[in-house]
């Protein structure tokens, strides 16, 4: 095939392109992923039943604030990484910020608590449920976001995969927070942070395979 023939072919009947495509497709994938994850959590476990005290409200709000801020910051990063050369326009600082904040708060919380309470604050009641639910529920949002990014053109597949994993984990953690009754900051830092990290690792490994173009 001659290159000029290819150019003639591509340059015939050129369709206009939606300039908001990347933002819209990533936004839609994350929104639908969040709805699916929330539906899965509510169907499997139900909304937390003990939402009667102010303390429970504050913790529900804090968990959602942590996970949603993470989703928003990383989604902005993904709209850059999904484009060619985007790896030069992102900063790890924004991604690390919510995690640094929650770990700092957890550390302060532990420092002011008697050491006899530490184990209960860190391990909680449902650590195993949290450890299993967040990565499993993250599969659907992960697939949706990967599917959207496959239509784009990331040039750093490992980092893009990692970021998709991180977003999927955070979306799943947002949904899990609706059910989770373990109200302590060290618990959130360790089990939410840890499971999101697991999802990030999975994304790092799968990224180059799933996103190649």
């Amino acid at each position, binding site marked *: 095939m001659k290159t000029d023939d290819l150019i003639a072919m*591509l340059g015939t009947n050129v369709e206009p392109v*939606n300039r908001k495509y990347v933002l819209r497709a990533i936004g839609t994938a994350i929104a639908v992923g969040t709805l699916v994850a929330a539906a899965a959590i509510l169907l499997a476990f139900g909304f937390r039943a003990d939402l009667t005290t102010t303390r429970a409200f504050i913790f529900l709000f804090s968990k959602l604030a942590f996970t949603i801020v993470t989703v928003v910051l990383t989604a902005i990063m993904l709209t850059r990484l999904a484009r060619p050369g985007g790896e030069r326009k992102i900063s790890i600082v924004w991604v690390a910020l919510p995690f640094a904040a929650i770990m700092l708060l957890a550390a302060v919380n532990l420092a002011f608590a008697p050491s006899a309470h530490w184990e209960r604050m860190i391990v909680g009641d449902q650590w195993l449920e949290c450890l299993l639910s967040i990565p499993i529920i993250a599969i659907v949002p992960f697939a949706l976001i990967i599917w959207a990014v496959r239509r784009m*053109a990331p040039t750093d597949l490992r980092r893009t995969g990692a970021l998709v994993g991180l977003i999927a984990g955070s979306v799943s953690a947002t949904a899990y927070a609706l059910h989770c009754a373990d109200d302590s900051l060290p618990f959130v830092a360790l089990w939410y942070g840890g499971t999101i990290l697991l999802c990030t690792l999975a994304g790092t490994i799968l990224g180059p395979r799933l996103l190649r*173009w």
Partner: protein
Amino acid sequence: MLAPEAELKNLMLAGLDGDAAAHRSLLKYLSDYLRAYYRRQLGRVGRSATDAEDLVQEVLLAIHTRRHTYDPVEPLTPWVHAIARYKLIDHLRRTRTSLRDVPIDEAPDLIAQEDQDSTESTHDLGKLLGQLPEKTRRAIECVKLEGLSVAETASRCGLSESNVKVSVHRGLRALAAAIARERER
């Protein structure tokens, strides 16, 4: 080699709005730039100009089918270069080329022997189109090769206009994927 950034960016923006002539000039400019780039880079590892032309065409298809990933507030040149570099690295990795295959000294000779007019790749468009599903292939042939309008194609093939548009879009993506797969063999 590469026309000024501002000029190329204007062509790109016009192309994004559906200006076919601007899009063609852009691809023409970029094909010259990419050809020089790949001959230089592949010359270093002792690859032929046919390889370079294969890559040029693969990148032109990628630029076309993924032009929605260009952010109009950013300059165009880095976007093009990131795609070109990604495809080069992918190519070298897939074909397991080692930089030791050919001494660097030989590179200028390889380039000097190139026929500057040979801009034909090893891809066979007919064969590639043959791999596509019937409907997609017909849509590409009518809209992209014969230059029929979407409306004409729709009535000829008995499809809706949006169906034709989707088929063309999907077909070009499949073509790009088929070319990328061919490279691995």
